[in-house]
């Protein structure tokens, strides 16, 4: 990688970049994975920029969380619960993932929480269906 004296590392649960933008540490995909909350985005309802940390699913109604996407390694229940608990206090209506079309246009917060719950249910399921 490219060291630079212009790179500033940060720690803790969040960092305020400016009055409109905060970064929030979630972990999960990487131990340091973080998301960006744009408070005035989505017509003032809040927009979350997540990259691969919260990954928009193909149906754009759910998201998922993975340790590795290309090698298909999931995360544990304990980590999903931790990520969920860090997203729950954030206020946002829209979520932007990685690509042009990986966007949850509205009720993204609900979609994120439902997705975490669905993930936990899948991990606990004992019967095939």
């Amino acid at each position: 990688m490219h060291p630079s004296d212009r790179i500033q590392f940060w720690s803790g649960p969040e960092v305020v970049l400016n009055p409109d933008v905060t970064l929030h540490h979630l972990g999960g995909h990487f131990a340091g994975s973080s998301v960006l909350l744009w408070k005035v985005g989505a017509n003032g309802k809040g927009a979350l920029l997540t990259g691969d940390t919260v990954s928009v699913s193909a149906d754009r109604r759910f998201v998922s969380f993975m340790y590795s996407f290309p090698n298909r390694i999931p995360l544990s229940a304990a980590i999903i619960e931790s990520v969920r608990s860090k997203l729950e206090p954030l206020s946002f209506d829209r979520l932007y993932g990685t690509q042009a079309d990986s966007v949850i246009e509205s009720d993204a917060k609900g979609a994120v929480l439902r997705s975490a719950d669905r993930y936990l249910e899948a991990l606990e399921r004992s019967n095939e269906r």
Partner: protein
Amino acid sequence: MNIGHIAVEPAIVIKTRGGTRVNEWICTTCGTQYVKSDAPPSQCSICEDERQYIGSAGQTWTTLEKVQRSGYRNAFYGHESNLIGVETVPEFAIGQHAKLLRTPHGNILWDCISYVDDVTVDLIRGTHFSARP
């Protein structure tokens, strides 16, 4: 040209205002750029991680100059007011996009892409709030 018996490809260097960036190797699989070295790194520490992978052709490297001469461009698209997506076309590495977030307090680039050129820098600088009349 020839130096002794060794054929050497003449160096083609695109002049950029940021200075030349020769021999700063970019992994073609993940798009990570490394610090300057005469020879490419022996391995890519990103792709060696169990979360990533080495391409089926093995570890290969390029440089920003080579990518700039290979017809790549950045495309811009609007997500919503003050949020612009930046996508390299054709797709490069794992197809990363960046997001340019404009706020009255300054611009923020979120997510990383490997490809940059002068016009990308000009367009991003031109979106700064203070750059507007």
